[in-house]
């Protein structure tokens, strides 16, 4: 029953301009099934973290929070942690956004729904969720399986599968990669993603995020290097050459 469906909400940002296109409300859920070395909000990883300031909320309660920001937000992005750990909540939440968010966006537009995900969830199995999801901001953290396991503590097979599936379904809002130059071959990641996407690359927005040590666990700091501005620009040029429609450096 919808009333019993609750998710652990870590934080809600009423105003965010870095969680997808336009001005959005960003909802962060607690709990993640990856353990990325460079995670900048590691306090969201452990679903049972006693120190985490979590509020269990129903879909309706979160929708009310989003609608309170009307008419300033174009929609909502759910992130975390890893929000796809709560697929039923997501589906119910998005269904209600679609229902109650009509005409509530800037200039009278309908509210849109985005998921920020590490790509571990098999979206193919949940067409009802995809139906009410306008797009997925997909983290392709590493295309090399071994390095992905080393850095994230998890496999990337589902991620790469999702990459192609979401592109074909028209739901790939953005591909995102955090650039840690000394731990990953970003050029290879870009080439692999471009290759897998094929003709869909030109419709794809690629966000390259420069790793920053802010919020990162102390024990991880030594092994992670910040990319130079020049390196980021080089990667951007390469990405554009490879045919990605839009490349953003963050």
């Amino acid at each position, binding site marked *: 029953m919808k009333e019993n469906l609750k998710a652990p909400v870590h934080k809600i940002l009423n105003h965010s301009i870095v969680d997808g296109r336009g001005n959005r409300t960003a909802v962060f859920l607690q709990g993640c099934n990856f353990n990325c070395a460079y995670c900048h909000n590691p306090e969201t990883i452990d679903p049972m973290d006693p120190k985490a300031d979590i509020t269990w909320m129903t879909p309706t309660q979160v929708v009310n929070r989003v609608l309170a920001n009307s008419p300033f937000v174009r929609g909502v992005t759910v992130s975390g942690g890893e929000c796809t750990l709560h697929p039923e909540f997501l589906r119910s939440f998005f269904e209600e956004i679609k229902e109650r968010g009509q005409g509530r966006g800037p200039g009278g537009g309908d509210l849109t729904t985005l998921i920020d995900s590490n790509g571990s969830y098999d979206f193919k199995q949940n067409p009802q969720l995809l139906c009410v999801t306008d797009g997925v901001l997909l983290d392709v953290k590493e295309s090399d399986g071994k390095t992905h396991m080393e850095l994230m503590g998890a496999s990337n097979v589902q991620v790469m599968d999702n990459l192609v599936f979401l592109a074909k379904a028209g739901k790939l809002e953005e591909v995102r990669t955090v650039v840690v130059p000394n731990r990953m071959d970003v050029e290879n990641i870009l080439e692999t993603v471009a290759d897998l996407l094929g003709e869909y690359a030109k419709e794809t927005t690629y966000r390259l995020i420069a790793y920053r040590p802010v919020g990162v666990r102390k024990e991880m700091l030594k092994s992670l290097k910040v990319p130079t501005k020049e390196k980021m620009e080089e990667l951007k040029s390469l990405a554009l050459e490879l045919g990605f429609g839009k490349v*953003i450096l963050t």
Partner: protein
Amino acid sequence: MATDKGKEWTLQDHQEKVKFILTDKTLTPHQVTYALAAVGRDLLATPGMAPDVEGDYIMMKEKGWICDLNEGHVTYMPRYILPDYGRLMEKGSVFLRLSPPKTLLDAITALLAMYASVPSVTHFPVYIGRLDRLLEPYVEKEMEKSGGEDSSYEMIKMFLRTIDRTIFDSFSHGNLGPEDSKTARLILRAERELQNSTPNLTLLYDPQITPDELAVLAVETALDCAKPSFAKDSMFRAELGENYGIASCYNGLPVAGGAYTLTRLILARVAEGSKNKEDFMNHTLPWAIDTMMAFMDAKIDFLVKEAPFFRANFLAKEGFVRPDRFNGLFGLVGMNECVNILMEREGKEGRFGFDVGADNLALEIMDFIKARVDRHENPHCSYWKGRFMLHAQVGTDADIGISPGTRIAIGREIPLYEHIRHAGLFHKYFPSGTGDIFPFDSTAGKNPEAVLDIFKGAFDSGMRYISTYSKDSDVIRITGYLVKRSDMDALEKGEAVLNDTVVLGLTSRQKSKIEERKVRKVEEE
């Protein structure tokens, strides 16, 4: 009888003032001339005021309740003039010996020539026209002739650069939109390259007409060089008619018209001079309003009947302006501080922007002012049905601890959406101008659609005018006008700078915490 703080000026006082002006090394020759002109003008008293009312006015001026915004006792030229430049394009001008322009070069040089003959309170034109509508036919012709946009871009850029170097005042204001055009896009591109404080620019924005692509381009430009601002075109059109323009800081006024005068009430000072809310609402405020309107009546009467402008100036004679499209503007500032003073005197804790009671008091004050101003008739204000138009004055460099119009004070900003909604409560009172500024973190440049979403939301929430810049831009918006940070730095070191408005910006920066205005971050809870 010129007076200053209760003392009547002697000839020696005036001579000392003249010497001070002549020996100031930070003034350019033009600035010296304008300062000397003001000395001459201020030798006169305001004609036509009853002695007791004039006494009240002088007393209120010295207490800081009323401010004449550098117009002095006598207004001999309309404060703001918005010529119908379209007429220049169609018919040319006899006085200026210009025939209707035929090419883009002809059009931009004709406009530049005309600007030199459009006066105002700043001695420079406060309105330079709807640039895209004026120039689009010529730009199209030039693009067709040259087979590309390079020559048009160069000419537009040189036009804008010349405006900045010959109109030394950032209150000079051009308009774009709401429709898309090649000219609008060239202007936005050129402004980013030029990074000048002049001209001020506004996009007359209507989401039903302006494509998102142009609006997003305008936002990107604003984040880079603090202009254009956005005006809610549908709201201004409904109030002022189709042929309106945004002039000076953000003033909505009729084209082929303008404002005779703008005088302002400094509400915070009136509140300081009141015992409590009852004294303010029933005694000091109505007294101040009536005194100010009497002062405005007298000045407008002199301007219309005795000053030669409407009979002799070519702008009036050739139909670039019409006397029946001028009006008086009743301005006010310091609502934030006024409300807080009154709340304190009432023993209440609520403060403006933070408390419904305080905000309701502000609305009560606005309703009172509007009702009293609307009851007053001036025979020369037929444009606004015989009444003065209310105006949220954007502040001056002398305003220390006085917030512009009805704005929340710098340093007291509230979360973004609440702040916008709060502004939206008041914008409806001011058809002749108000506006709010929301600077963003420079990261916003990577998601300008987000800023546009916020602007759309703002216009849906009652706002009529909104501005932005990013914290890294050299050009920033002070209270309504633009100044380059690098110019302010130069002036602070004692170097002369070309633009007259820099000194205002510098004083505001030093005294009014302008650089402490809250920068909206990429994320906010």
